[in-house]
């Protein structure tokens, strides 16, 4: 009952903020571009990589996960309502886990449907399912990361963007070692292994992708629970 209540109020909070509207255009863009490419008869080899990977996995998935993942806890910390949740005799995991579930679910639904549709249009239902599954795993790993970030730093969105843009986007292209710590690469690998098409090029092995995703999800969740346990509210001088 407690976890349901936390999930309910988290969802209400998420959809009650205007920030939520940011979730809509990005997935539509992926689907829209896929439809246009198909309609004009462009060969999937030419558009699948930029639309599915360049836009879908590298931008839409992490950005949506960032908005949602920092929204489920970070915005409550920002506006101070977290105190109402924390002044309850609840073990902190009962607060973190429902929020993680909500973040993952909202991100997955938002991103995976678009990825599925774009995957089907690019190649096959199998590719669509592969991308949707990758999206689910990615949503979980990213959500855990961004949820923990909102407890570790006062600027989770900024730090999250740095991770997505600089670490995954920039360094991931040039320094191959960084790919082992890149959620984007795990997602790519999972989608590629589920549906080997030649349209996606995975750069890490499947076991690495699965194990590292699990480590991301579990590790950052544990970190978030521990950080929430020692959550401090600094006094504000009025």
């Amino acid at each position, binding site marked *: 009952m407690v976890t349901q209540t936390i999930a309910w*109020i988290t969802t209400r909070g998420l959809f*009650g903020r205007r920030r939520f509207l940011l979730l809509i255009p990005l997935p539509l863009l992926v689907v829209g571009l896929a439809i246009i490419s198909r309609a004009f008869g462009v060969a999937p080899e030419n558009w699948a990589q930029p639309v599915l990977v360049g836009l879908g996995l590298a931008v839409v998935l992490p950005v949506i996960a960032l908005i949602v993942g920092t929204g489920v806890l970070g915005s409550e910390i920002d506006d101070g309502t977290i105190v109402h949740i924390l002044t*309850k005799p609840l*073990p902190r995991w009962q607060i973190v886990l429902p929020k993680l579930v909500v973040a993952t679910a909202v991100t997955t639904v938002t991103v995976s449907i678009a990825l599925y549709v774009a995957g089907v249009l690019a190649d096959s239902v199998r590719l669509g399912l592969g991308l949707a599954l990758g999206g689910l795993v990615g949503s979980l790993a990213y959500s855990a990361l961004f949820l923990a970030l909102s407890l570790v730093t006062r600027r989770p969105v900024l730090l999250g963007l740095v991770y997505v843009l600089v670490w995954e986007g920039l360094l991931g292209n040039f320094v191959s070692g960084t790919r082992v710590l890149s959620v984007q690469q795990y997602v790519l690998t999972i989608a590629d292994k589920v549906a080997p098409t030649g349209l996606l090029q995975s750069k890490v092995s499947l076991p690495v992708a699965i194990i590292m995703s699990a480590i991301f999800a579990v590790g950052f969740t544990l970190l978030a629970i521990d950080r929430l346990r*020692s959550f*401090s509210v600094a006094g*504000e001088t009025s």
Partner: protein
Amino acid sequence: MTGLLGPNGAGKTTVLHMMAGFLAPSRGTVTIDGAPTWRNPAVYKQLGLVSEREAAHDFLTAREFLTVSARLHRLPDAEAAAQRALELVEMTPAQDRRIGTYSKGMRQRTRVAAALVHDPQVLLLDEPFNGMDPRQRLHMMELLHRLGEAGRTILFSSHILEEVEQVSGTVQVIVSGRLAASGDYRAIRRLMSNRPHVFAVHSTDDRRLAVALMGQASVTGVEIDRTGLTIRAGDYGSFTRALPKIALAEGIRVRRLHPSDESLESVFSYLVEA
């Protein structure tokens, strides 16, 4: 019922947050009924906190907000508990409106209700009167009085003297992170006998009274003007005992004796200066 008084930046919020488990003490432990408050969510069973920030879930109605609070406390009948708390703060007429539409005072009362929903033994309030108009302030003071009379331990902070004076007789004065004084504020004031107490006196013959008073060891200064005498006394007790005797002996009738700085204000400014 205890008031935590101090200027801005004195450490009132820090103390309250340590008590409420939102700050780790750099040394030692803070306990409530023997249980540490830091990293121990179980203390919230008997603790209610109304923080200074006015945050509440604006998208919920007061009733939803209170029901959520009650559920998170695992109360057996969350709806009934929510209703009880709303009645206590007299928020039932507006309970089905979203909190975002409330005035400051209503919002504050809703937050107090949320802190009371599980009937805690200890209630901590950080600047509960901030931003309230006089009527709302009066209402909140009445509410705190009622809660105190019902046997709860209430600790609230304020940087405004009149608030503390009106709500609670017991005061803890914090200045720069130190406990500067503790106890009944009049008693605190009296204990500080090294500071002159100022009395305004008016009598049938002010000048003759002034001459007689100067002979008293407890009197450190007398000023005379059209309105009467301003007397500085080093020791509260001996001066107030001496004055009637002198007046009687001199045949002077004292028309007015007014401890002109017997307010928390003067206690406070003295402590801050010290």
